[in-house]
Protein backbone atom coordinates (compact mmCIF):
# COMPACT_ATOMS: atom_id res chain seq x y z
CA UNK A 1 0.00 0.00 0.00
CA UNK A 2 1.35 3.33 -1.00
CA UNK A 3 -0.34 6.67 -0.94
CA UNK A 4 -1.35 6.41 -4.56
CA UNK A 5 -3.56 3.51 -3.66
CA UNK A 6 -5.51 5.78 -1.44
CA UNK A 7 -5.62 8.42 -4.10
CA UNK A 8 -6.97 5.98 -6.66
CA UNK A 9 -9.64 4.89 -4.26
CA UNK A 10 -10.43 8.45 -3.25
CA UNK A 11 -13.67 8.86 -5.22
CA UNK A 12 -15.01 5.61 -3.87
CA UNK A 13 -13.92 6.47 -0.36
CA UNK A 14 -15.57 9.85 -0.51
CA UNK A 15 -18.80 8.39 -1.76
CA UNK A 16 -18.77 5.86 1.02
CA UNK A 17 -18.10 8.48 3.63
CA UNK A 18 -20.91 10.63 2.42
CA UNK A 19 -23.23 7.67 2.27
CA UNK A 20 -22.45 6.85 5.86
CA UNK A 21 -22.80 10.50 6.73
CA UNK A 22 -26.24 10.60 5.20
CA UNK A 23 -27.27 7.56 7.17
CA UNK A 24 -26.17 9.23 10.36
CA UNK A 25 -27.55 12.66 9.62
CA UNK A 26 -30.83 11.17 8.53
CA UNK A 27 -31.37 9.94 12.04
CA UNK A 28 -31.41 13.46 13.33
CA UNK A 29 -33.42 15.12 10.61
CA UNK A 30 -37.06 15.90 11.20
CA UNK A 31 -39.46 14.83 8.52
CA UNK A 32 -39.70 18.16 6.77
CA UNK A 33 -35.96 18.56 6.59
CA UNK A 34 -35.25 15.42 4.62
CA UNK A 35 -34.26 17.39 1.58
CA UNK A 36 -31.01 18.01 3.41
CA UNK A 37 -30.10 14.43 2.58
CA UNK A 38 -30.29 15.23 -1.08
CA UNK A 39 -28.00 18.15 -0.56
CA UNK A 40 -25.54 16.01 1.33
CA UNK A 41 -25.64 13.44 -1.40
CA UNK A 42 -25.16 16.07 -4.03
CA UNK A 43 -22.17 17.48 -2.20
CA UNK A 44 -20.85 13.97 -1.90
CA UNK A 45 -21.07 13.56 -5.63
CA UNK A 46 -19.29 16.84 -6.12
CA UNK A 47 -16.55 15.84 -3.74
CA UNK A 48 -16.17 12.56 -5.46
CA UNK A 49 -15.95 14.31 -8.78
CA UNK A 50 -13.28 16.52 -7.31
CA UNK A 51 -11.50 13.38 -6.26
CA UNK A 52 -11.67 12.05 -9.78
CA UNK A 53 -10.37 15.34 -11.04
CA UNK A 54 -7.53 15.10 -8.60
CA UNK A 55 -6.62 11.70 -9.99
CA UNK A 56 -6.89 13.05 -13.47
CA UNK A 57 -4.50 15.85 -12.67
CA UNK A 58 -2.15 13.50 -10.99
CA UNK A 59 -2.13 11.12 -13.89
CA UNK A 60 -1.76 13.95 -16.36
CA UNK A 61 0.09 12.37 -19.18
CA UNK A 62 0.17 8.75 -18.18
CA UNK A 63 -2.58 6.56 -19.56
CA UNK A 64 -3.43 4.91 -16.28
CA UNK A 65 -2.32 3.73 -12.94
CA UNK A 66 -2.62 0.37 -11.27
CA UNK A 67 -3.26 0.33 -7.60
CA UNK A 68 -4.45 -1.77 -4.71
CA UNK A 69 -2.16 -4.66 -5.51
CA UNK A 70 -2.92 -4.57 -9.18
CA UNK A 71 -6.63 -4.92 -8.74
CA UNK A 72 -7.67 -1.38 -9.46
CA UNK A 73 -6.82 0.12 -12.79
CA UNK A 74 -7.69 3.77 -12.84
CA UNK A 75 -6.99 4.75 -16.37
CA UNK A 76 -8.65 7.26 -18.60
CA UNK A 77 -11.34 4.80 -19.41
CA UNK A 78 -12.18 4.48 -15.75
CA UNK A 79 -12.04 8.20 -15.20
CA UNK A 80 -14.38 8.75 -18.07
CA UNK A 81 -16.86 6.38 -16.56
CA UNK A 82 -16.39 7.87 -13.12
CA UNK A 83 -17.45 11.22 -14.44
CA UNK A 84 -20.32 9.64 -16.26
CA UNK A 85 -21.64 7.89 -13.18
CA UNK A 86 -21.29 10.99 -11.10
CA UNK A 87 -23.05 13.16 -13.63
CA UNK A 88 -25.90 10.72 -13.88
CA UNK A 89 -26.14 10.47 -10.13
CA UNK A 90 -26.14 14.20 -9.68
CA UNK A 91 -28.99 14.62 -12.10
CA UNK A 92 -30.87 11.71 -10.60
CA UNK A 93 -30.52 13.23 -7.14
CA UNK A 94 -31.99 16.46 -8.38
CA UNK A 95 -34.85 14.53 -9.86
CA UNK A 96 -35.53 12.67 -6.67
CA UNK A 97 -36.07 15.42 -4.13
CA UNK A 98 -39.61 16.36 -4.87
CA UNK A 99 -40.57 12.96 -6.14
CA UNK A 100 -39.74 11.26 -2.89
CA UNK A 101 -41.69 13.85 -0.99
CA UNK A 102 -44.74 13.13 -3.06
CA UNK A 103 -44.28 9.44 -2.61
CA UNK A 104 -43.78 10.05 1.10
CA UNK A 105 -40.68 7.92 1.11
CA UNK A 106 -38.02 10.53 1.55
CA UNK A 107 -35.59 8.60 3.65
CA UNK A 108 -31.89 9.11 3.81
CA UNK A 109 -31.31 5.51 2.88
CA UNK A 110 -32.35 6.29 -0.63
CA UNK A 111 -29.47 8.63 -1.22
CA UNK A 112 -27.05 6.52 0.73
CA UNK A 113 -27.87 3.54 -1.43
CA UNK A 114 -27.50 5.63 -4.50
CA UNK A 115 -24.04 6.75 -3.53
CA UNK A 116 -23.02 3.26 -2.54
CA UNK A 117 -24.22 1.87 -5.79
CA UNK A 118 -22.06 4.43 -7.54
CA UNK A 119 -19.15 3.19 -5.49
CA UNK A 120 -19.92 -0.26 -6.81
CA UNK A 121 -20.09 1.03 -10.34
CA UNK A 122 -16.70 2.61 -9.94
CA UNK A 123 -15.30 -0.72 -8.92
CA UNK A 124 -16.82 -2.25 -12.00
CA UNK A 125 -15.35 0.37 -14.24
CA UNK A 126 -11.94 0.38 -12.64
CA UNK A 127 -11.67 -3.24 -11.66
CA UNK A 128 -8.71 -5.06 -13.05
CA UNK A 129 -9.46 -8.21 -11.20
CA UNK A 130 -12.56 -10.29 -11.56
CA UNK A 131 -13.09 -10.49 -7.83
CA UNK A 132 -13.22 -6.75 -7.48
CA UNK A 133 -15.42 -6.47 -10.53
CA UNK A 134 -17.76 -9.08 -9.19
CA UNK A 135 -18.02 -7.50 -5.78
CA UNK A 136 -18.49 -4.07 -7.32
CA UNK A 137 -21.19 -5.49 -9.52
CA UNK A 138 -22.99 -6.97 -6.59
CA UNK A 139 -22.68 -3.81 -4.56
CA UNK A 140 -24.28 -1.92 -7.38
CA UNK A 141 -26.87 -4.55 -8.08
CA UNK A 142 -28.03 -5.02 -4.54
CA UNK A 143 -28.29 -1.30 -3.96
CA UNK A 144 -30.34 -1.06 -7.08
CA UNK A 145 -32.65 -3.88 -6.10
CA UNK A 146 -33.50 -1.99 -2.99
CA UNK A 147 -33.87 1.29 -4.77
CA UNK A 148 -36.22 -0.29 -7.26
CA UNK A 149 -38.38 -1.53 -4.45
CA UNK A 150 -38.09 1.66 -2.49
CA UNK A 151 -41.77 2.51 -2.78
CA UNK A 152 -42.66 -0.21 -0.37
CA UNK A 153 -46.33 0.46 -0.34
CA UNK A 154 -46.58 0.33 -4.09
CA UNK A 155 -47.24 -3.11 -5.43
CA UNK A 156 -45.65 -2.37 -8.73
CA UNK A 157 -42.49 -1.34 -7.01
CA UNK A 158 -42.49 -4.50 -4.92
CA UNK A 159 -42.98 -6.68 -7.90
CA UNK A 160 -40.37 -4.91 -9.88
CA UNK A 161 -37.86 -5.26 -7.11
CA UNK A 162 -38.65 -8.91 -6.66
CA UNK A 163 -38.34 -9.70 -10.32
CA UNK A 164 -35.25 -7.65 -10.69
CA UNK A 165 -33.70 -9.36 -7.74
CA UNK A 166 -34.57 -12.86 -8.84
CA UNK A 167 -33.32 -12.40 -12.34
CA UNK A 168 -30.41 -10.29 -11.25
CA UNK A 169 -29.26 -12.81 -8.70
CA UNK A 170 -29.74 -15.59 -11.19
CA UNK A 171 -27.61 -13.80 -13.71
CA UNK A 172 -25.01 -13.01 -11.09
CA UNK A 173 -24.88 -16.68 -10.34
CA UNK A 174 -24.33 -17.57 -13.96
CA UNK A 175 -21.80 -14.83 -14.27
CA UNK A 176 -19.97 -16.05 -11.20
CA UNK A 177 -19.95 -19.55 -12.63
CA UNK A 178 -18.25 -18.21 -15.71
CA UNK A 179 -15.77 -16.32 -13.61
CA UNK A 180 -15.00 -19.43 -11.62
CA UNK A 181 -14.17 -21.26 -14.81
CA UNK A 182 -12.05 -18.38 -15.97
CA UNK A 183 -10.19 -18.53 -12.73
CA UNK A 184 -9.82 -22.25 -13.16
CA UNK A 185 -8.35 -21.82 -16.59
CA UNK A 186 -6.05 -19.02 -15.61
CA UNK A 187 -5.15 -19.69 -12.03
CA UNK A 188 -5.47 -16.04 -11.34
CA UNK A 189 -8.22 -13.53 -10.97
CA UNK A 190 -6.34 -10.80 -12.71
CA UNK A 191 -7.68 -9.88 -16.11
CA UNK A 192 -4.38 -9.70 -18.01
CA UNK A 193 -3.35 -13.09 -16.68
CA UNK A 194 -6.68 -14.48 -17.75
CA UNK A 195 -6.02 -13.03 -21.14
CA UNK A 196 -2.65 -14.74 -21.41
CA UNK A 197 -3.89 -18.04 -20.16
CA UNK A 198 -6.91 -17.99 -22.38
CA UNK A 199 -4.67 -17.58 -25.35
CA UNK A 200 -3.03 -20.80 -24.33
CA UNK A 201 -6.30 -22.52 -23.57
CA UNK A 202 -7.64 -21.60 -26.95
CA UNK A 203 -4.71 -23.28 -28.57
CA UNK A 204 -5.31 -26.44 -26.62
CA UNK A 205 -8.17 -28.51 -28.06
CA UNK A 206 -8.75 -30.02 -24.67
CA UNK A 207 -9.30 -26.79 -22.83
CA UNK A 208 -11.00 -24.90 -25.56
CA UNK A 209 -14.47 -26.28 -24.82
CA UNK A 210 -14.09 -25.33 -21.18
CA UNK A 211 -13.03 -21.89 -22.23
CA UNK A 212 -16.11 -21.67 -24.39
CA UNK A 213 -18.36 -22.61 -21.52
CA UNK A 214 -16.63 -20.04 -19.39
CA UNK A 215 -17.17 -17.50 -22.11
CA UNK A 216 -20.79 -18.32 -22.64
CA UNK A 217 -21.68 -18.16 -18.99
CA UNK A 218 -19.68 -15.02 -18.38
CA UNK A 219 -21.13 -13.27 -21.35
CA UNK A 220 -24.60 -14.33 -20.34
CA UNK A 221 -24.10 -12.58 -17.06
CA UNK A 222 -22.73 -9.52 -18.75
CA UNK A 223 -25.56 -9.35 -21.23
CA UNK A 224 -28.02 -9.70 -18.41
CA UNK A 225 -26.63 -6.65 -16.78
CA UNK A 226 -26.89 -4.52 -19.86
CA UNK A 227 -30.30 -6.04 -20.61
CA UNK A 228 -29.68 -7.43 -24.05
CA UNK A 229 -32.26 -9.74 -25.49
CA UNK A 230 -32.75 -12.63 -24.65
CA UNK A 231 -31.64 -11.61 -21.19
CA UNK A 232 -33.74 -8.52 -20.94
CA UNK A 233 -36.88 -9.64 -19.16
CA UNK A 234 -36.04 -7.80 -16.02
CA UNK A 235 -35.58 -4.45 -17.63
CA UNK A 236 -39.10 -3.43 -18.64
CA UNK A 237 -40.53 -4.51 -15.33
CA UNK A 238 -37.84 -3.03 -13.21
CA UNK A 239 -38.03 0.19 -15.17
CA UNK A 240 -41.74 0.41 -14.92
CA UNK A 241 -42.07 -0.47 -11.30
CA UNK A 242 -39.15 1.47 -9.92
CA UNK A 243 -39.50 5.01 -8.65
CA UNK A 244 -39.18 7.07 -11.79
CA UNK A 245 -36.08 8.84 -10.62
CA UNK A 246 -34.47 5.48 -10.07
CA UNK A 247 -35.62 4.30 -13.45
CA UNK A 248 -33.69 7.16 -14.92
CA UNK A 249 -30.71 6.41 -12.78
CA UNK A 250 -30.82 2.74 -13.70
CA UNK A 251 -31.27 3.27 -17.36
CA UNK A 252 -28.21 5.43 -17.39
CA UNK A 253 -25.73 4.80 -14.64
CA UNK A 254 -26.39 1.14 -14.05
CA UNK A 255 -26.32 0.48 -17.72
CA UNK A 256 -23.13 2.45 -18.17
CA UNK A 257 -21.57 0.47 -15.37
CA UNK A 258 -22.65 -2.74 -17.03
CA UNK A 259 -21.04 -1.57 -20.19
CA UNK A 260 -17.87 -0.55 -18.46
CA UNK A 261 -17.63 -3.98 -16.98
CA UNK A 262 -18.48 -5.66 -20.24
CA UNK A 263 -15.84 -3.71 -22.09
CA UNK A 264 -13.24 -4.36 -19.46
CA UNK A 265 -13.87 -8.06 -19.39
CA UNK A 266 -14.29 -8.60 -23.08
CA UNK A 267 -11.52 -6.31 -24.23
CA UNK A 268 -8.97 -7.23 -21.64
CA UNK A 269 -9.81 -10.61 -20.23
CA UNK A 270 -11.60 -12.41 -23.01
CA UNK A 271 -9.90 -10.83 -25.98
CA UNK A 272 -8.30 -14.10 -27.09
CA UNK A 273 -11.76 -15.55 -27.54
CA UNK A 274 -12.88 -12.78 -29.84
CA UNK A 275 -13.56 -15.06 -32.80
CA UNK A 276 -16.09 -16.85 -30.67
CA UNK A 277 -17.87 -14.04 -29.01
CA UNK A 278 -18.20 -11.75 -31.95
CA UNK A 279 -20.72 -13.97 -33.77
CA UNK A 280 -22.50 -14.41 -30.49
CA UNK A 281 -22.77 -10.69 -30.10
CA UNK A 282 -23.93 -10.26 -33.65
CA UNK A 283 -26.78 -12.59 -32.95
CA UNK A 284 -27.60 -10.93 -29.67
CA UNK A 285 -27.47 -7.47 -31.08
CA UNK A 286 -29.77 -8.29 -33.96
CA UNK A 287 -32.15 -10.02 -31.61
CA UNK A 288 -31.99 -7.08 -29.27
CA UNK A 289 -32.75 -4.49 -31.88
CA UNK A 290 -35.53 -6.54 -33.38
CA UNK A 291 -37.17 -7.62 -30.19
CA UNK A 292 -36.91 -4.36 -28.35
CA UNK A 293 -38.11 -2.23 -31.21
CA UNK A 294 -41.09 -4.39 -31.88
CA UNK A 295 -41.94 -4.69 -28.23
CA UNK A 296 -41.71 -0.96 -27.76
CA UNK A 297 -44.28 -0.39 -30.46
CA UNK A 298 -47.13 -1.75 -28.43
CA UNK A 299 -46.37 -0.14 -25.10
CA UNK A 300 -48.74 2.28 -23.50
CA UNK A 301 -46.66 3.00 -20.45
CA UNK A 302 -44.01 5.59 -21.02
CA UNK A 303 -41.53 4.10 -18.63
CA UNK A 304 -41.96 0.71 -20.16
CA UNK A 305 -41.66 2.14 -23.61
CA UNK A 306 -38.46 3.88 -22.68
CA UNK A 307 -37.27 0.65 -21.14
CA UNK A 308 -37.65 -1.13 -24.43
CA UNK A 309 -36.06 1.78 -26.16
CA UNK A 310 -33.12 1.50 -23.86
CA UNK A 311 -32.88 -2.17 -24.66
CA UNK A 312 -32.88 -1.27 -28.32
CA UNK A 313 -30.07 1.13 -27.68
CA UNK A 314 -28.10 -1.70 -26.18
CA UNK A 315 -28.48 -3.43 -29.49
CA UNK A 316 -26.91 -0.50 -31.28
CA UNK A 317 -24.12 -0.32 -28.78
CA UNK A 318 -23.43 -4.00 -29.24
CA UNK A 319 -23.05 -3.25 -32.91
CA UNK A 320 -20.41 -0.77 -31.86
CA UNK A 321 -18.64 -3.47 -29.92
CA UNK A 322 -18.74 -5.76 -32.92
CA UNK A 323 -17.26 -3.04 -35.04
CA UNK A 324 -14.85 -2.12 -32.31
CA UNK A 325 -13.30 -5.55 -32.21
CA UNK A 326 -13.77 -6.72 -35.74
CA UNK A 327 -10.16 -7.19 -36.57
CA UNK A 328 -8.33 -5.60 -33.75
CA UNK A 329 -9.38 -2.93 -31.35
CA UNK A 330 -10.94 -0.45 -33.67
CA UNK A 331 -11.37 2.90 -32.13
CA UNK A 332 -14.54 4.01 -33.84
CA UNK A 333 -16.82 1.34 -32.51
CA UNK A 334 -15.62 1.64 -28.94
CA UNK A 335 -15.69 5.38 -29.25
CA UNK A 336 -19.26 5.07 -30.40
CA UNK A 337 -20.15 3.13 -27.28
CA UNK A 338 -18.44 5.58 -25.00
CA UNK A 339 -19.99 8.62 -26.53
CA UNK A 340 -23.29 6.83 -26.75
CA UNK A 341 -23.22 6.25 -23.04
CA UNK A 342 -22.33 9.85 -22.46
CA UNK A 343 -25.13 11.31 -24.49
CA UNK A 344 -27.47 8.64 -23.32
CA UNK A 345 -26.88 9.82 -19.79
CA UNK A 346 -28.25 13.21 -20.53
CA UNK A 347 -31.00 12.47 -22.95
CA UNK A 348 -32.45 9.53 -21.13
CA UNK A 349 -32.21 11.13 -17.74
CA UNK A 350 -33.85 14.16 -19.23
CA UNK A 351 -36.68 12.08 -20.59
CA UNK A 352 -37.18 10.34 -17.30
CA UNK A 353 -36.91 13.66 -15.58
CA UNK A 354 -39.89 14.93 -17.50
CA UNK A 355 -41.82 11.80 -16.64
CA UNK A 356 -40.84 12.19 -13.01
CA UNK A 357 -42.10 15.72 -13.13
CA UNK A 358 -45.48 14.44 -14.17
CA UNK A 359 -45.88 12.74 -10.83
CA UNK A 360 -48.01 15.05 -8.75
CA UNK A 361 -50.79 14.64 -6.30
CA UNK A 362 -52.69 11.58 -7.38
CA UNK A 363 -51.29 11.26 -10.82
CA UNK A 364 -48.58 8.70 -11.27
CA UNK A 365 -47.78 10.08 -14.64
CA UNK A 366 -46.15 7.21 -16.38
CA UNK A 367 -48.92 6.31 -18.76
CA UNK A 368 -48.73 7.60 -22.26
CA UNK A 369 -52.07 9.31 -21.75
CA UNK A 370 -50.66 11.31 -18.88
CA UNK A 371 -48.48 13.07 -21.37
CA UNK A 372 -51.44 14.25 -23.38
CA UNK A 373 -51.30 17.93 -24.00
CA UNK A 374 -48.17 18.33 -21.98
CA UNK A 375 -47.30 21.17 -24.25
CA UNK A 376 -50.10 23.30 -22.98
CA UNK A 377 -49.34 22.47 -19.39
CA UNK A 378 -45.58 22.76 -19.41
CA UNK A 379 -44.35 23.98 -22.76
CA UNK A 380 -40.68 24.17 -21.91
CA UNK A 381 -40.62 20.67 -20.55
CA UNK A 382 -42.56 19.40 -23.51
CA UNK A 383 -40.15 20.90 -25.97
CA UNK A 384 -37.22 19.57 -23.99
CA UNK A 385 -38.86 16.17 -23.95
CA UNK A 386 -39.21 16.39 -27.69
CA UNK A 387 -35.54 17.15 -27.90
CA UNK A 388 -34.71 14.18 -25.70
CA UNK A 389 -36.89 11.90 -27.74
CA UNK A 390 -35.48 13.03 -31.02
CA UNK A 391 -32.06 12.71 -29.56
CA UNK A 392 -32.88 9.18 -28.52
CA UNK A 393 -34.01 8.53 -32.04
CA UNK A 394 -30.70 9.82 -33.26
CA UNK A 395 -31.82 12.83 -35.23
CA UNK A 396 -29.00 15.26 -35.86
CA UNK A 397 -27.99 17.74 -34.62
CA UNK A 398 -28.87 16.32 -31.26
CA UNK A 399 -26.59 14.47 -28.95
CA UNK A 400 -28.01 11.05 -29.59
CA UNK A 401 -26.94 11.22 -33.15
CA UNK A 402 -23.29 11.12 -32.24
CA UNK A 403 -23.41 7.77 -30.60
CA UNK A 404 -25.03 6.24 -33.63
CA UNK A 405 -22.72 8.14 -35.89
CA UNK A 406 -19.58 6.60 -34.50
CA UNK A 407 -21.07 3.18 -34.25
CA UNK A 408 -22.14 3.22 -37.86
CA UNK A 409 -18.86 4.73 -38.87
CA UNK A 410 -17.16 1.87 -37.10
CA UNK A 411 -19.36 -0.65 -38.85
CA UNK A 412 -18.77 0.92 -42.22
CA UNK A 413 -15.07 1.14 -41.78
CA UNK A 414 -14.88 -2.50 -40.82
CA UNK A 415 -17.06 -3.57 -43.67
CA UNK A 416 -20.18 -4.60 -41.77
CA UNK A 417 -22.51 -3.04 -44.29
CA UNK A 418 -25.44 -5.32 -43.66
CA UNK A 419 -25.33 -4.78 -39.92
CA UNK A 420 -25.04 -1.08 -40.43
CA UNK A 421 -28.07 -1.03 -42.69
CA UNK A 422 -30.04 -3.09 -40.25
CA UNK A 423 -29.03 -0.79 -37.46
CA UNK A 424 -30.06 2.37 -39.21
CA UNK A 425 -33.33 0.91 -40.34
CA UNK A 426 -34.15 -0.09 -36.81
CA UNK A 427 -33.30 3.36 -35.65
CA UNK A 428 -35.95 4.66 -38.04
CA UNK A 429 -38.25 2.08 -36.66
CA UNK A 430 -37.45 3.38 -33.22
CA UNK A 431 -38.47 6.84 -34.20
CA UNK A 432 -42.01 5.65 -34.53
CA UNK A 433 -42.52 4.96 -30.87
CA UNK A 434 -40.70 8.06 -29.82
CA UNK A 435 -43.08 9.97 -31.99
CA UNK A 436 -45.93 8.32 -30.18
CA UNK A 437 -44.81 10.15 -27.08
CA UNK A 438 -44.29 13.34 -29.02
CA UNK A 439 -47.74 12.97 -30.53
CA UNK A 440 -49.27 12.70 -27.13
CA UNK A 441 -47.44 15.74 -25.88
CA UNK A 442 -48.05 18.01 -28.80
CA UNK A 443 -51.16 16.73 -30.43
CA UNK A 444 -53.02 15.03 -27.63
CA UNK A 445 -55.66 16.84 -25.68
CA UNK A 446 -55.06 17.46 -22.01
CA UNK A 447 -57.84 16.42 -19.75
CA UNK A 448 -57.83 19.61 -17.81
CA UNK A 449 -56.58 21.88 -20.46
CA UNK A 450 -54.90 24.88 -19.00
CA UNK A 451 -53.74 23.57 -15.69
CA UNK A 452 -50.04 24.11 -15.45
CA UNK A 453 -47.85 21.40 -14.12
CA UNK A 454 -46.01 22.22 -10.91
CA UNK A 455 -42.38 21.43 -11.34
CA UNK A 456 -39.94 21.87 -8.53
CA UNK A 457 -36.77 23.84 -8.79
CA UNK A 458 -34.32 20.95 -8.56
CA UNK A 459 -36.31 19.14 -11.17
CA UNK A 460 -36.16 22.11 -13.45
CA UNK A 461 -32.46 22.24 -12.90
CA UNK A 462 -32.12 18.56 -13.72
CA UNK A 463 -34.13 18.75 -16.88
CA UNK A 464 -32.43 21.94 -17.92
CA UNK A 465 -28.98 20.48 -17.45
CA UNK A 466 -29.96 17.42 -19.41
CA UNK A 467 -31.51 19.49 -22.14
CA UNK A 468 -28.64 21.89 -22.47
CA UNK A 469 -26.18 19.04 -22.50
CA UNK A 470 -28.17 17.24 -25.17
CA UNK A 471 -28.24 20.28 -27.37
CA UNK A 472 -24.71 21.31 -26.68
CA UNK A 473 -23.21 17.92 -27.34
CA UNK A 474 -25.33 17.71 -30.44
CA UNK A 475 -24.28 21.00 -31.86
CA UNK A 476 -20.72 21.27 -30.69
CA UNK A 477 -19.56 17.76 -30.02
CA UNK A 478 -15.96 18.45 -30.71
CA UNK A 479 -14.77 18.76 -27.16
CA UNK A 480 -16.66 15.64 -26.21
CA UNK A 481 -15.21 13.70 -29.07
CA UNK A 482 -11.83 14.93 -27.98
CA UNK A 483 -12.67 13.74 -24.51
CA UNK A 484 -13.46 10.29 -25.78
CA UNK A 485 -10.36 10.31 -27.89
CA UNK A 486 -8.42 11.21 -24.80
CA UNK A 487 -10.12 8.37 -23.02
CA UNK A 488 -9.05 5.92 -25.65
CA UNK A 489 -5.70 7.54 -26.00
CA UNK A 490 -6.21 8.43 -29.62
CA UNK A 491 -4.85 11.43 -31.35
CA UNK A 492 -6.28 12.18 -34.68
CA UNK A 493 -6.13 15.06 -37.11
Amino acid at each position, binding site marked *: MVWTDYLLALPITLLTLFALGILLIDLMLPKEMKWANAITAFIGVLFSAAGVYKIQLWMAASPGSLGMMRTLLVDRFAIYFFYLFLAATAIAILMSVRYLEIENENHGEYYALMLLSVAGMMCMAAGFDIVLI*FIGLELMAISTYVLV*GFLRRDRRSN*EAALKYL*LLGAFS*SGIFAYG*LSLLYGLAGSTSLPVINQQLTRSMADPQYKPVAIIALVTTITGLLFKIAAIPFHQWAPDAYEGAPTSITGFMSVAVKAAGWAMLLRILLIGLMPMRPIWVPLLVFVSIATMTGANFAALTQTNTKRLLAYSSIAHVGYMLLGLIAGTATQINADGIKGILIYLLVYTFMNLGAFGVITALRHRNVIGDELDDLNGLYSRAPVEAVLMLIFLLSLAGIPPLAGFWGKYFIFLGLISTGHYALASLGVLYSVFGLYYYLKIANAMFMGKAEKAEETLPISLPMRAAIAVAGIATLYIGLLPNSFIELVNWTLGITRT
Partner: protein
Amino acid sequence: MDFMLHITTLHYLVLGAALFLLGVIGVLTRRNVVIVLMSIELILNAVNLNLVAFSRYWQGIHGPQALHGQVFAIFVITDAAAEAAVGLGILIAFFRNKETVNVDEVNLLKW
Protein backbone atom coordinates in the same frame (compact mmCIF):
# COMPACT_ATOMS: atom_id res chain seq x y z
CA MET B 1 -11.98 -47.64 -13.03
CA ASP B 2 -9.00 -45.69 -12.01
CA PHE B 3 -10.91 -42.69 -13.20
CA MET B 4 -13.62 -43.48 -10.75
CA LEU B 5 -11.32 -44.13 -7.84
CA HIS B 6 -8.91 -41.34 -8.22
CA ILE B 7 -10.68 -38.17 -7.24
CA THR B 8 -9.45 -35.26 -9.27
CA THR B 9 -10.45 -31.68 -9.84
CA LEU B 10 -12.64 -32.87 -12.63
CA HIS B 11 -14.86 -34.78 -10.27
CA TYR B 12 -15.55 -31.63 -8.39
CA LEU B 13 -16.22 -29.79 -11.59
CA VAL B 14 -18.78 -32.30 -12.70
CA LEU B 15 -20.39 -32.17 -9.31
CA GLY B 16 -20.41 -28.40 -9.53
CA ALA B 17 -21.95 -28.52 -12.97
CA ALA B 18 -24.66 -30.82 -11.73
CA LEU B 19 -25.41 -28.51 -8.86
CA PHE B 20 -25.43 -25.55 -11.18
CA LEU B 21 -27.82 -27.38 -13.40
CA LEU B 22 -30.16 -28.18 -10.54
CA GLY B 23 -30.11 -24.56 -9.57
CA VAL B 24 -30.93 -23.44 -13.07
CA ILE B 25 -33.76 -25.89 -13.32
CA GLY B 26 -35.08 -24.69 -10.02
CA VAL B 27 -35.02 -21.08 -11.05
CA LEU B 28 -36.64 -21.78 -14.36
CA THR B 29 -39.38 -24.07 -13.21
CA ARG B 30 -40.44 -23.29 -9.67
CA ARG B 31 -43.15 -20.84 -8.79
CA ASN B 32 -42.38 -20.36 -5.16
CA VAL B 33 -40.12 -17.35 -4.74
CA VAL B 34 -38.39 -18.76 -1.71
CA ILE B 35 -37.49 -21.89 -3.55
CA VAL B 36 -36.30 -19.87 -6.48
CA LEU B 37 -34.03 -18.00 -4.13
CA MET B 38 -32.77 -21.29 -2.77
CA SER B 39 -32.07 -22.47 -6.27
CA ILE B 40 -29.98 -19.39 -6.75
CA GLU B 41 -28.07 -20.37 -3.66
CA LEU B 42 -27.48 -23.73 -5.29
CA ILE B 43 -25.97 -22.00 -8.27
CA LEU B 44 -23.71 -19.94 -6.10
CA ASN B 45 -22.66 -23.08 -4.30
CA ALA B 46 -21.76 -24.68 -7.57
CA VAL B 47 -19.59 -21.67 -8.21
CA ASN B 48 -17.93 -22.04 -4.86
CA LEU B 49 -17.26 -25.69 -5.36
CA ASN B 50 -15.61 -24.90 -8.65
CA LEU B 51 -13.57 -22.16 -7.10
CA VAL B 52 -12.31 -24.22 -4.23
CA ALA B 53 -11.53 -27.18 -6.44
CA PHE B 54 -9.65 -24.96 -8.82
CA SER B 55 -7.91 -23.37 -5.93
CA ARG B 56 -6.65 -26.77 -4.94
CA TYR B 57 -5.59 -27.47 -8.49
CA TRP B 58 -3.64 -24.26 -8.80
CA GLN B 59 -2.10 -24.71 -5.41
CA GLY B 60 -0.52 -27.80 -6.83
CA ILE B 61 0.99 -25.70 -9.58
CA HIS B 62 1.68 -22.33 -8.05
CA GLY B 63 2.43 -23.35 -4.52
CA PRO B 64 0.56 -23.17 -1.26
CA GLN B 65 -0.12 -19.48 -1.30
CA ALA B 66 -2.25 -19.70 -4.45
CA LEU B 67 -5.50 -19.57 -2.59
CA HIS B 68 -7.25 -17.09 -4.83
CA GLY B 69 -10.09 -19.44 -5.50
CA GLN B 70 -10.83 -19.87 -1.84
CA VAL B 71 -10.79 -16.15 -1.29
CA PHE B 72 -13.06 -15.69 -4.25
CA ALA B 73 -15.36 -18.30 -2.77
CA ILE B 74 -15.54 -16.32 0.43
CA PHE B 75 -16.53 -13.27 -1.52
CA VAL B 76 -19.19 -15.25 -3.31
CA ILE B 77 -20.55 -16.46 0.00
CA THR B 78 -20.67 -12.87 1.21
CA ASP B 79 -22.56 -11.94 -1.87
CA ALA B 80 -24.94 -14.81 -1.39
CA ALA B 81 -25.64 -13.66 2.13
CA ALA B 82 -26.31 -10.11 1.01
CA GLU B 83 -28.50 -11.22 -1.83
CA ALA B 84 -30.51 -13.53 0.37
CA ALA B 85 -31.01 -10.86 3.00
CA VAL B 86 -32.22 -8.28 0.54
CA GLY B 87 -34.21 -10.81 -1.41
CA LEU B 88 -36.07 -12.00 1.61
CA GLY B 89 -36.59 -8.43 2.72
CA ILE B 90 -38.16 -7.60 -0.59
CA LEU B 91 -40.18 -10.75 -0.39
CA ILE B 92 -41.59 -9.68 2.94
CA ALA B 93 -42.45 -6.25 1.61
CA PHE B 94 -44.06 -7.91 -1.34
CA PHE B 95 -45.97 -10.32 0.82
CA ARG B 96 -47.32 -7.47 2.87
CA ASN B 97 -48.92 -5.99 -0.18
CA LYS B 98 -49.99 -9.15 -1.82
CA GLU B 99 -50.42 -12.38 -0.02
CA THR B 100 -48.60 -14.72 -2.30
CA VAL B 101 -45.14 -15.96 -2.86
CA ASN B 102 -45.62 -17.33 -6.30
CA VAL B 103 -43.49 -15.97 -9.03
CA ASP B 104 -46.14 -16.01 -11.68
CA GLU B 105 -48.56 -14.16 -9.56
CA VAL B 106 -46.09 -11.37 -9.76
CA ASN B 107 -48.29 -10.23 -12.54
CA LEU B 108 -49.07 -6.59 -12.19
CA LEU B 109 -46.20 -6.06 -14.51
CA LYS B 110 -45.98 -8.46 -17.34
CA TRP B 111 -43.64 -11.30 -16.71
